[in-house]
């Protein structure tokens, strides 16, 4: 089990390899479909994303009686929908990590190599285990996109993920896809 702590450094991200189980501590920002669309259309992000991690997640967030936000459930959403945009966010804003589920395609993998970023796979559906790792909700941006689509600034501790795409061209998803397709063909 590896650990990475905030502030994240691009050099340590370059050290990660496919198959590494990693515990992340520190800051991360949620961002999913509407955020990526807005960034792609040219709107600047409301925070500095350099050496930050984006989490593909639309959490269940409630406000308590004192007006404080509380995350009730926060697992990853399917990442492949951001395939057209993710590499641009790496190029333009310098993110070093993307957390999501289901993996991403060749554009993202190329972006990871070129700009120094990795894809962390969180366990899909594990909304409670992951919500427990969120220690605080520090801010929210672009709330006009609706609660699940807004950018939530979170502080996490020992957030469990697996590296499935690294910054050296390695992709577990490409590998599993290829081998499973071969076995499928044998069974046709």
């Amino acid at each position: 089990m590896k650990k990475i702590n905030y502030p994240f450094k691009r050099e340590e991200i370059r050290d990660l390899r496919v198959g590494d189980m990693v515990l992340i501590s520190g800051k991360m920002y949620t961002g999913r479909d509407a955020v990526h669309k807005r960034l792609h259309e040219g709107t600047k992000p409301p925070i500095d994303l350099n050496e930050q991690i984006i989490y593909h997640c639309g959490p269940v967030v409630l406000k308590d009686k004192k007006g404080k936000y509380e995350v009730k459930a926060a697992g990853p959403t399917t990442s492949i929908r951001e395939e057209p945009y993710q590499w641009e966010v790496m190029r333009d804003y310098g993110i070093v990590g993307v957390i999501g589920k289901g993996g991403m395609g060749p554009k993202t993998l190329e972006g990871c190599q070129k700009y120094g970023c990795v894809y962390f796979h969180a366990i899909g559906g594990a909304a409670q285990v992951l919500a427990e790792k969120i220690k605080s909700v520090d801010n929210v941006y672009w709330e006009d996109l609706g609660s699940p689509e807004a950018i939530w600034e979170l502080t996490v501790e020992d957030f469990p993920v697996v590296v499935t795409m690294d910054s050296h061209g390695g992709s577990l998803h490409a590998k599993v896809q290829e081998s499973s397709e071969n076995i499928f063909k044998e069974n046709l």
Partner: protein
Amino acid sequence: MAKKKKATKKKVAKKKVTKKKVAKTTKKKATKKKATKKKATKKKDGLFDSLLELIRQTSTVLPDDIQKVVLEALHREEKNTTAEYAMNIIKANIELAEKKSQPICQDTGTILFYVNHPEGFKQNEFTKVVHKAVKKATALGYLRQNSVDSLTGKNECMNVGPGHPDIHFHEHKKKHIEVKLMLKGGGCENVGAQYKLPDVGLDAGRDLDGVRKVILDAVVKAQGKGCGPGVLGVAIGGDRGAGYVKSKEMLLRKLDDTNSHPDLKKLEENIVETSNKFGIGPMGFGGKTTLLGCKVGVLNRLPASFFVSISYMCWAYRRQGITLGNNNIIKKWLY
């Protein structure tokens, strides 16, 4: 885990009993309020509370038949692999969601109600109470704000809007009302697929072997994107709409049931067995369990059409059901 679930349900039942006791004592003490209280207790319709409890239970507790296969899948994976790691987190998540009474998955999905009711049942009135319960469940965080206006992108209707929730009514010959609920997340819904036979690319003809080929193709295409290991609901035949509806209804079957049609039973077993050879594994990490089950149903078709509709359900297979007794109070849990 199974024991815990029963305990939670009992606790709820107990709560209701306690409430009644309190009412009794108050009645004795305050004679003035007696008449009104009595009236209120007598006429109190439990439908709203029952539906809210059904939603809470569905969103936060995985039914026994599903927990059982998830645990079996965990034990099948090799030690110290990412597949085992994923299954262990899934197990911990199921336990934690139940303990905290919070959503198993943050995507609380399309809200699908299946209502079997006797003759003379008032569907519109029932629908109104369903809407009220859904809004309350959203305010309480059992459901996420999950219903987006497709034109404006706004997501603030508390899950009640065109097409949401999706309620399917069916009249049956029994005297009681039965309400089933399924919460189906978007990730798994997105990897559903519909094929029409013949399919030249897959060399799939208009027979059960052709059906088998296209189902397996859907499994390979889904990879880990639908939060595997998953369960397939499949409908052979129907038009495009009816096929997808039927494929989801197949997911109401218990995981350990047996298809009464011998050929379909064989097909279901074959799909699970073959898919688990693919090595896609939990979350698509590679591993031994790709599918936890497959349920196939049949509809008639037109001579010109041969559809195979496939709905993929993630491991966070949230479905529950109740039968309603007097005053629409929950009488029995169905899963």
